[in-house]
């Protein structure tokens, strides 16, 4: 299950996408995020619960600012921390 958090607004598009199936629930991305924008949350996997990474609700609509300070070429701290490459950042102005 691929969850896209973020938005496209007048100034560009800013998304963090988490692949819940690939996520191993290790929590390293959330720990390494300099803006503290990520958290581990419970989602339904069938009828069971699985803990996966997600963008904190308070950060979802300010993702542009939350992710502005990080590398946007695929080496943001959350992306580097993720062994299965379950998290991906898009930060594009214009």
């Amino acid at each position, binding site marked *: 299950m691929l969850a896209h958090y973020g938005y496209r607004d007048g100034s560009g598009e800013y998304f963090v996408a988490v692949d819940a199936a690939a996520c191993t629930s290790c929590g390293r991305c959330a720990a390494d995020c300099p803006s503290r924008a990520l958290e581990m949350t419970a989602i339904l996997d069938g009828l069971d619960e699985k803990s996966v990474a997600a963008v904190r609700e308070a950060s979802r609509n300010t993702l542009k*600012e939350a992710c502005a300070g990080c590398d946007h070429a695929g080496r943001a701290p959350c992306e580097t921390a993720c062994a299965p490459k379950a998290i991906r950042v898009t930060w594009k102005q214009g």
Partner: protein
Amino acid sequence: MTVVGADAGASRVKLVLVRDGEVVARGAAPCGIDLAGTAQALLDGLLAEAGVPRSQVSAIPATGTGAEAVPFATARVNVVKVMARAGVKLVPAARTVIDVGAEEARAVRCDAKGSIADFALNDKCAAGAGSFIEAMSRALECPLEEMGPLSLKAGKAIGLTAQCVIFAESEVVSLIHRRTPPEEIARAAYDAMAARVSGLLLRLGAQPEVVVVGGVARDPGFIAALGRKLGVPLTVPPDPEFAGALGAALCAEG
């Protein structure tokens, strides 16, 4: 050399008359429906007031979103370049210039000569520019010029979750219904806008001195909120709304 600099913004047209590098006259007017007509009338009035015939004006560079519609412009200058030049002219120690207008916000890092090191734009999202405060002032039924002083009276900071002008209007209406003090709402609006504008500097860094220009720089509520958010002292030169026009004029002189 006598030059006129023109800055056709989303909301207002600004002109400055510059002789040998110094501003001798300035004028501004709302764009209205007919930007070209407004600009022409403004130019005629400015030259008449200064007693300068049109023939004496050697160049009229224009900048801003409406620059193409300025009929007498002799050249168009990039708005970021203009900001940097004006920034260091007005404040020689300026190394970071933030320009907040009605519909766009920009930040530029420059050197002592006004050459651009890096820049960031917040265009096309009204929530990060003056129209956000205008919308909030309508929702609060508070005249725009009183919004800043009102916000400075707030005893505490509350949050505005909406990140869109339209949603924020609805949120303010429900805050009013819940009897939230208007000064707290006003401050929350400025805090929200300052957060978005300060986002421009996350990548650039705020190298002192940090200068703020543009129409919104005249608003003490915004400056206070931006200063709180950035945590660095801010310098607002006199007549910050005319910085763009000044910068355009300076670009004519090379």
